[in-house]
């Protein structure tokens, strides 16, 4: 099941490989079908998932497999190493409450991404092959339970992303692409060292060999005391934790490692921005929840304060930078920096409310930011500019668009009744309840105001008031005597057309529904998160 959902896009990519590149429509449809199939599988998984099973094992002596679901565990590679028993790498997939949420999100966002890729005209074949490769890699990251496998998927994402930004991107795309590549690789290579170090420090209780299994690694009882990352080797454990954290923080992205994000977003084509903000950023925080924290619980417990401070910086700093942007897309990019700050803050809280909030925020940010970038793309397609000052009074002329924008914007600023609010609220509840991050939370609350500030301001400048003299569109009085606008060289519908609606409406519905009744998602994640919190609390406190 999981293998299928992971490798479906790659299969689609192979099919596309066979299609002649002139048959653009067929190519699109093939990948759309793959994405839809993925979505169906995701729904099946969601229905079949048993929310009562926590996943990782909390206490020493727990089952070495944990209680993951849809587990697929095949021996992949078992090498004889000179001197060192054997190197066992397993093809080990499985989901718990934390990853199943992300699986659903990934399926959703990549399906929508395919739809929004419909307008891509340049080298369609190559585009969709890379796109499908990317989709598979992302999905793989979320379901892999073997560190080696995870790392393979993790690195596999970089190359398609590099090309997708670099070939189909904006004017300054080469710079953005190579910057993204170098940044993220820089983060992940150190992960490689930590991975090896962990491998030599952990023993699989069943086979007695060293193992890459994250489940075994998450159980402190499996560590060799004197090994390089064993309990005795405190310094190296701290180093490893920090290195891993930086690796993931670059993906998040966390201040001060965030500068690749605005460039990447501004240059990337709309669907790629959607994927990037919707799923890729989540991989950073997901990695923290899956690998970074449970493997080094005591280090995490010692550094909650630092993480919280960085989260606060992200929230406030991102909000302020967004406030200053003239480019709408850049503003949205900074806003997602700010929103990922909430995730960091919630994780730093280290208690259930905070972690649930963080995970839920990951999901909601995925859907909401996807919506934001799609909307930016809509206006960019028409006006060929994203300068906020080039617009004004749009809501008179594009009512549907304006309505959806309003929903998305308010969802992004955390309005109650929309999903973003609940996650942010839980993040704050958790962060405030934990003594460590209480004061940090009190500071970060300012983020709510500034978030509202930049969003409302941009909303006013673009949609309210009247047309600005130097606006990117003209007014003309239509047959019915009302004023209409028309964009230069835009033949399509002025307001949203059917394709754009099919992309946006589901997201709007999800946002509203999850804002009113969050249990469909929360119900799945709570058990696992509670267990995670148990694992993270040192035995002394537990």
């Amino acid at each position, binding site marked *: 099941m999981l293998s299928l959902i992971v490798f479906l896009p790659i299969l689609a990519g192979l099919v596309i490989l066979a299609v002649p590149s002139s048959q653009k429509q067929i190519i699109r449809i093939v990948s759309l079908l793959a994405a839809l199939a993925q979505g169906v599988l995701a729904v099946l998984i969601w229905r079949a998932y048993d929310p009562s099973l926590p996943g990782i094992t909390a206490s020493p002596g727990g089952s070495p497999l944990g209680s993951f679901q849809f587990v697929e565990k095949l021996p*992949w*590679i*078992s*090498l*004889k*190493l*000179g*001197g*060192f028993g054997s*190197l066992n790498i397993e093809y080990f997939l499985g989901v718990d409450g934390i990853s199943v949420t992300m699986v659903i999100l990934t399926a959703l966002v990549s399906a929508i991404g395919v739809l929004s890729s419909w307008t891509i005209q340049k*080298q369609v074949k190559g585009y969709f092959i890379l796109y499908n490769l990317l989709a598979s890699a992302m999905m793989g990251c979320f379901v892999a339970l073997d560190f080696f496998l995870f*790392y*393979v998927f993790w*690195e*596999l994402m*970089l*190359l398609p992303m*590099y*090309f997708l930004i*670099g*070939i189909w991107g904006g004017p300054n*795309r*080469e710079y953005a*692409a*190579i910057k993204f*590549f*170098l940044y993220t*690789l*820089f983060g992940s*290579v*150190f992960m*490689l*060292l930590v991975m*090896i*170090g962990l*491998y*030599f420090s952990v023993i699989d209780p069943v086979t007695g060999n060293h193992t890459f299994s994250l489940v075994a690694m998450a159980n402190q009882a499996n560590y060799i005391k004197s090994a*390089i990352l064993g309990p005795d*080797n405190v310094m*190296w454990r701290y180093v490893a934790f920090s290195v891993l954290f930086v690796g993931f923080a670059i993906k998040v992205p966390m201040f001060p490692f965030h500068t690749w994000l605005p460039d990447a977003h501004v240059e990337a084509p709309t669907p790629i921005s959607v994927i990037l903000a919707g799923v890729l950023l989540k991989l950073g925080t997901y990695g923290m929840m899956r690998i970074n924290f449970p493997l080094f619980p005591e280090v995490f417990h010692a550094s909650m304060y630092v993480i919280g401070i960085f989260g606060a910086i992200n929230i406030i700093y991102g909000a302020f930078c967004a406030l200053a942007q003239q480019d709408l897309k850049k503003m949205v990019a900074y806003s997602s920096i700010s929103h990922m700050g909430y995730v960091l803050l919630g994780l730093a809280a280290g208690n259930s409310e905070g972690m649930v909030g963080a995970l839920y925020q990951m999901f909601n940010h995925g859907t909401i930011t996807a919506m934001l970038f799609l909307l930016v793309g809509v206006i960019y397609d028409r006006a060929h500019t994203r300068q906020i000052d080039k617009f004004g009074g749009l809501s008179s002329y594009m009512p549907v668009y304006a309505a959806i924008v309003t929903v998305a914007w308010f969802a992004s600023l955390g309005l109650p009744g929309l999903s973003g609010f609940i996650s942010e609220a839980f993040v704050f509840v958790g962060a405030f309840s934990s003594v460590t991050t209480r004061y940090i939370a009190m500071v970060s609350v300012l983020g709510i105001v500034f978030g509202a500030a930049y969003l409302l301001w941009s909303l006013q400048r673009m949609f309210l008031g009247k047309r600005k003299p130097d606006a990117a569109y003209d007014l003309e009085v239509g047959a019915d005597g009302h004023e209409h606008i028309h964009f230069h060289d835009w033949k399509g519908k002025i307001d949203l057309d059917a394709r754009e609606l099919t992309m946006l409406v589901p997201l709007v519905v999800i946002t509203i529904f999850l804002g009113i009744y969050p249990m469909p998602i929360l119900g799945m994640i709570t058990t696992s998160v509670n267990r995670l919190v148990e694992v993270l609390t040192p035995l002394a406190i537990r």
Partner: protein
Amino acid sequence: MFELPSGAEIQSIIATLNANLGLFIPEIYLSLLFMLLIVIDLVAKGRKNNLLSIATLLGLAGSIFFIYQQHHLPAGEIFFGMYVLDEFALFFKYFFVLSGMLAVVITMADEQFESEVKSMGEYYALIIAMVIGMIMMASSADLMMIFLSMELVSFSAFILTGYFKRNPRSSEAALKYLVYGAVSSGLMVYGFSLIYGLTAQTNLINISSELSLHGYDPLLMILATLLILAGFGYKIGAVPFHFWAPDVYEGAPTPITAYLSVASKAAGFALLMRFFYIAVPHGGPVYEDILGINWVSLLILLSIASMIYGNVVALWQKNVKRLLAYSSIAHAGYILLGIIVMDAFGTQATLFYLLSYFIMNFGAFYVVILIANKTGSENLEDYRGLGKKMPLAGAALTVFLISLVGLPPTIGFIGKLMIFSALLAKGSIYLWLALIGIMTSVISLYYYMLIPLNMYLRESPGSEEKNMDPGLIANIIMAVMMFLTIYFGLFFQPLSDFAKYSSPMFGLKLY
């Protein structure tokens, strides 16, 4: 003063030789192939047909059979300790024969030869000669044998480098290669002579036992080690013995560049490992600390210097061949990491890395040649927009390059993984080395990605619509190599097991 041997002794000597000849069949076969090729050339009057190349391919392929025969033979020395036969040697025999075949294949693809040279006569013969030399390098256990085989390789390499006689760069490369090679091998021989003076032995195993038995002057020993290292280092092209490499790689015919950068480098490593693992005494109570540490620290310096220098300078290259030359210097540094570890795992990692380097580097050079055939240039600027014109070539080159960077799911990643695992398996003492390796590999990403960047992200200046299809066979070969790069990146068990099987050396007391 030396009394002549008696008849009985001569009898026994001849008997031993006859007995040992059986263990020498592949080399003999290859030598016969060498002469055969010359004869064929004389017969064919250097007409430009593929007869020679096909013959070479088949001949080399045939040799694999004889090498395979040797698996069941017991490891041991022959010719009075001049020469050994063990799994380690067998590994390199396969390695060199295969690289010889690939060199031939690449040569067949390279159209520069039509324009540059009239007759391919001795070209293939020399490739065979190099194969023989390298095989002997990998399996020689005596200083004299080492020297002879090295010179055999070097001389063939000199000629092959200068094979484009009317091409100034080729000739210049040959000259530089010659002078530099001659000097460093001269220094090496001088080092040999010092060791001979210290131990009165030329056989590695005896040298080792002599050294650990009686003492020696550490100063003299380090001098000898340095001089010998000059010789080996020049073969593996590690900093600071690398200076010849960029110029030679740039000037030489591309197939030869690939051949040198993979095969003769590997031969150098084989020699290095055998010499230092066997000749230098380990674990001896007294000398462990003096010599054992010294040469390891020397190698550490070499590897750090190579990794940093190679990657950093490569950032500035505009010529793809030269860029790959610097990258090969950097890779020498990575391979040295595996040797430094000094245990079975390290050896296994080194051998595996050599295998991965074999596939990806030959692949890269092959694509470079195919592109040069069409564009007639190896400059980065001329790679613009090639991604659309030669889709398969572009994709293949990209795969080889990310494999050279060491990104999954390619074989290069596994190679790096095993090297770093070997380092970390030692605990935290070599962690800093691993860190340097990691950092430099990040740097390397940048210049490797310059090539796909030019191929895909930029439009070609002139939109001349000439046929860019490299042809069916070339495509197939590219596809196969690309597939192997990825396949072995995911299922590397067979290669790794083979490397493990080949790690033991005859007379090795290290592990």
